[in-house]
């Protein structure tokens, strides 16, 4: 299934560097992709409140120097933003299923 | 509870002074000779009590016995904990006061009403309830205390956000 392919990749990816702790560079990369996905969701006028709060949590953890938690939070924010984008696109037609006729 | 500020305390002294003068001056007392604590003075102490038993003792100084002559009307599930319509009616006579106690609130005593001669023994009001709680209404009639109890379910609304 389309969805599980990136899932497997993500898993493989996160296993590889598990040995060394995430540093600021990892965090910055993860945060950038999360923020881009969040902007796209906002563009579709379908942002989730949890995406916004998780991004904020990532920033807060990074400010506190805890880059492990910050990177994890940024990755979660990315997943949330991607799910809201998926929801917006699939709802373009799916809403008709619920319509009272 | 915050203690009352300076000016208020002096205002209360004046009130007490006026009340005592009124009591001396007037022939017929506007209030039936009820328990001293339940006349004009604001029962500060009773409102400070946390649980229901202490509040009843502080306000009336004795216990109440359940009576089916006290009809307490309150919803089974409160539409909203901030505005719960509650009312009491009773067939007892010579009623001098009616009080409401919300057991699970931070302070049990919610409200107490003093009745003059000729005032029908009954009252309706809207109370706040912090969570699902036992609600007790006490009627003081001819110096004795009668009570009615009902449970009111209280939860928040909405799906969480």
């Amino acid at each position: 299934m389309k969805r599980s392919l990136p899932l497997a990749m993500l898993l493989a990816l996160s296993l590889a560097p598990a040995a060394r702790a995430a540093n600021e560079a990892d965090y910055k990369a993860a945060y950038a992709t999360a923020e881009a996905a969040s902007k796209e969701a906002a563009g579709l006028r379908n942002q989730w409140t949890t995406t916004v709060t998780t991004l904020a949590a990532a920033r807060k953890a990074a400010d506190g120097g805890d880059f492990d938690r910050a990177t994890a939070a940024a990755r979660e924010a990315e997943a949330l933003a991607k799910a809201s984008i998926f929801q917006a696109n699939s709802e373009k037609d799916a809403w008709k299923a619920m319509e009272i006729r | 509870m915050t203690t009352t500020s300076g000016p208020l305390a002096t205002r209360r002294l004046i009130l007490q002074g006026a009340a005592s003068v009124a009591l001396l001056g007037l022939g017929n007392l506007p209030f039936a000779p009820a328990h001293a604590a339940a006349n004009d003075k604001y029962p500060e102490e009773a409102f400070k009590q946390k649980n229901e038993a202490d509040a009843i003792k502080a306000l009336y100084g004795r216990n109440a016995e359940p009576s089916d002559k006290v009809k307490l009307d309150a919803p089974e599930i409160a539409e909203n904990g901030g505005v719960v319509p509650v009312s009491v009616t009773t067939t007892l006579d010579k009623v001098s006061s009616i009080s409401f106690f919300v057991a699970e609130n931070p302070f049990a005593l919610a409200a107490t009403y003093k009745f003059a001669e000729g005032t029908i023994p009954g009252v309706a009001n809207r109370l706040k309830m912090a969570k699902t709680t036992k609600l007790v209404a006490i009627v003081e009639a001819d110096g004795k205390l009668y009570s009615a109890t009902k449970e009111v379910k209280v939860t928040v609304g909405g799906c969480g956000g």
Partner: protein
Amino acid sequence: MASSIRVRATSNGDITEVQALIQHPMDTGLVKDPKGEVIPAHYIQQLTFECNGKDVFVADWGTAVSKDPYVKFSFKGAKKGDDLKISWTDNKGASDTTTAKIA
């Protein structure tokens, strides 16, 4: 400014039914505002109803009385046209009073 007390007093000859709705925040002192500071307690403590020079009904309220409080009771011994004086004082010493004609 209109009074903070709205009252309806209607008599059927013998019994007068009184309903009052008062505009007041009735803050408990246990709630925080959006910035996290505690909103100080601010609630009506005593509300008196006086008719023909006699206190017919006195309410002593704590913090558990709802915002914009409402109370309803009835009493005998008054007739249409009599004045019903309502006044309240709160824990900050503020007060308001109004007089209504029994309809």
